[in-house]
């Protein structure tokens, strides 16, 4: 079965979705990602969906769920590179993905993650490793 790779970049995880998401793949990604976050102690997750062209309500909800789960595991999620057609579809489906942060591209997303981690550190002091 095909699998979506999860790459570790410093204290962040990078997930690039490059194939058509079907439901089983989405569930597998959810499992993998939560496990990897807790294993690597990641502070942020960056999901790149710039090549994703078709979404349905299930995938939309999954993105939302992943963001919520990561937050529980103390990692910020940023979804980057959503295509206009995908954005329109999600809005028409009534999924505005509240609580999911978004950015135009991987660069902007990384910047967002670094900024939020920095802000967290200033607020609560750095985590003891």
């Amino acid at each position: 079965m095909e699998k979506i790779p999860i790459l570790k970049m410093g204290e962040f995880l990078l997930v690039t979705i490059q194939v058509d998401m079907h439901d089983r793949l989405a569930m597998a990604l959810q499992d993998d990602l939560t496990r990897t976050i807790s294993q690597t102690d990641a502070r942020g997750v960056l999901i790149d969906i710039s090549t994703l062209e078709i979404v349905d309500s299930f995938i939309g909800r999954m993105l939302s769920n992943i963001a919520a789960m990561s937050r529980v595991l103390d990692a910020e999620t940023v979804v980057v590179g959503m295509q206009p057609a995908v954005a329109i579809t999600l809005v028409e489906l009534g999924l505005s993905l509240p609580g999911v942060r978004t950015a135009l591209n991987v660069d902007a997303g990384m910047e967002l993650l670094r900024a939020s981690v920095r802000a967290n550190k200033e607020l609560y002091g750095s985590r003891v490793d």
Partner: protein
Amino acid sequence: MSEIQSNRNHKSLAGVLNQNSEKVLNEWLKEMSGSTRRSDLIRESDLRAECSRFLQLMKQATESDSANFQSPAFEGVRDMLSDISRSRSQKGFKPSETATFVFSLKRPLFNEIQNQYRGDADAMAAEIWKLNELLDAMGLFTMEVYLKSREEVVRRQQEELLELSTPVVKLWDGILALPIIGTLDSARTQVVMESLLQAIVQTNSRVAIIDITGVPTVDTVVAQHLLKTVTAARLMGADCIISGVRPQIAQTIVHLGINLLDVTTKSTLAAAFSVALQRLGISFVRETAKG
């Protein structure tokens, strides 16, 4: 009896067209030259060719089926009429001028039938009535096609207007503006939404300003559409600011109970622009005069 009657009648109209087609054609052209001849729009020779072809088609049609314009026999006539009607509406003929093409055929044909049925008043009346109905049906058909082709023009213009009316303007590196003029309906919002989102991707812009100064009224539907656009832009990672909210519109929005709390709104495009610059961390400093 009626079978024989109709047989004779149908023969007679076809017969008229068969025997005297040249005479009918000449009289018809004369008839048209009176009121509706537009020599500025169509050449004499073209008109003549058109008319004689039309008579030819009519002859064929009436030979197989006497007077039912909807029958398959008249398909050729119908096609030609719709071609004529369409080309006339494009050339700038008036509706009445277009319809008279058919109606001016009445007098020549009536004259011929009169000649043929001299002395038999009943048969003449029946034949004339039949012909009258046929020509009226043709006239109405011509008008229908005329109007339809006009409507097509209007629709095409509307579409072009739709394309023209949604320019996305780049204000700064990373800042887009979308000035909306006129009423927003579903079709237009779709175009607005798509062109804005497309432009966001192309220019890599982080902030988009939707300026609604030119939108006369905002109702729940329009507000819904605006919110959808803002949400879609946010999903792609761009911030949206709505500017140009006039006092009346602000009142309407509150009275309608529309929730715009999650959206940044500004009264002017300038205010929105300065917020956008702030978000990108750009600031301007006025150069003070030296010395």
